[in-house]
């Protein structure tokens, strides 16, 4: 019997909300899938198209971006900028023949520990349904080896 596919998901989490919410989920002893490898960012507005593409390029099965509730960004509108960038990334993924559902953005506050556990499960299930990334895991970016 084949092993259950355990996705590798990169989670870009805003320091002021999702990262703190993940911390809270831990303190609350909530159980959630461990598939998401969290990278703390000062604000989701810091995340550029290239960060998400690079994660996929290096073999992530999915990329999750979690920022503050809309209207509650510590930097006023970083999360709104992130939202529009994520929309553009999804559009680009579609054009290059990758499933746009491999990238998803969520909004939550630092007090929402249970919500973090919920989105972690939701994202993991979403990527499990899509299956492993078509990008070979062992690959180093070919672009780096050329010149």
């Amino acid at each position, binding site marked *: 019997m084949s092993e259950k596919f355990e996705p590798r998901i990169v989670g870009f989490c805003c320091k002021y909300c999702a990262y703190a919410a993940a911390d809270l989920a831990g303190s609350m002893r909530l159980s959630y899938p461990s598939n998401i490898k969290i990278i703390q960012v000062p604000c989701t507005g810091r995340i*550029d*198209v*290239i960060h998400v*593409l*690079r994660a*996929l*390029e290096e073999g992530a099965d999915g990329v999750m971006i979690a920022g503050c509730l809309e209207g509650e960004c510590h930097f006023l509108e970083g999360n709104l900028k992130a939202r529009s960038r994520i929309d553009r990334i999804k559009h*680009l*993924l579609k*054009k*290059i*023949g*990758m499933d746009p559902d491999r990238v998803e953005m969520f909004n939550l506050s630092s007090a929402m520990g249970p919500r973090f556990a919920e989105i972690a499960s939701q994202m993991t299930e979403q990527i499990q349904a899509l299956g492993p*990334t*078509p*990008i*070979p895991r062992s*690959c180093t*970016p*070919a*672009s780096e*080896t*050329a*010149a």
Partner: protein
Amino acid sequence: MIIARKKPVEEIITEIDPYDRILILGCNECVTVCEAGGKKEVEILASALTLHYQARGKAKTFGKATLERQCDREYLEEIRGRIHNYDAVLSLACGVGVQFAAETYTATPLLPGVDTVCLGANEERGLWTERCQACGSCVLARTGGICPVSRCAKRVMNGPCGGSANGKCELGPDTDCAWQLIIDRLKALGRLEDYEQVAPIKDWSTDRAGGPRTITREDIQL
């Protein structure tokens, strides 16, 4: 500044498909400022194309380089030592850069990664508007600093034409009537007498109509 627009990625994929090793060549000047072909766009495009081909199990190599300018030979020389590693170059420079690179490296196919659109100004983030058509004989002194060549659809030199209504061009409500702008500006400057003077027939031989142009500056030629 020269304004360019990214080509749709599907079109780029079709262009590069026959080649296995492709150098994506950005330019640090105009196309960087209008966010169509600078270092950042090179990175994103290389990553997107890598994903596209790896997902299909095809091994293609994407090299990356961004030159200070592609419209100067000295900067193009910077890739001479590595261009033999590639089957094609996808240049994200304007049409000038693509052609100059193609002239410099005749053995390598040069493909354009952007569409060069116009000479324009940056109105706001992500919005550029045409301001100059490089007609080769500037009339802005007489027209209050507003160009009837680039901003009037008909390029009329003694406007406005009959299509102007309420300050807008007959093209549509998004296009200002250049001559309305000129009159308003001259009025504000107290120089409406400039408007009263009938402009002589414009010599279009300095424009593209006179064929490809060459600019010779003997004073700076050594």
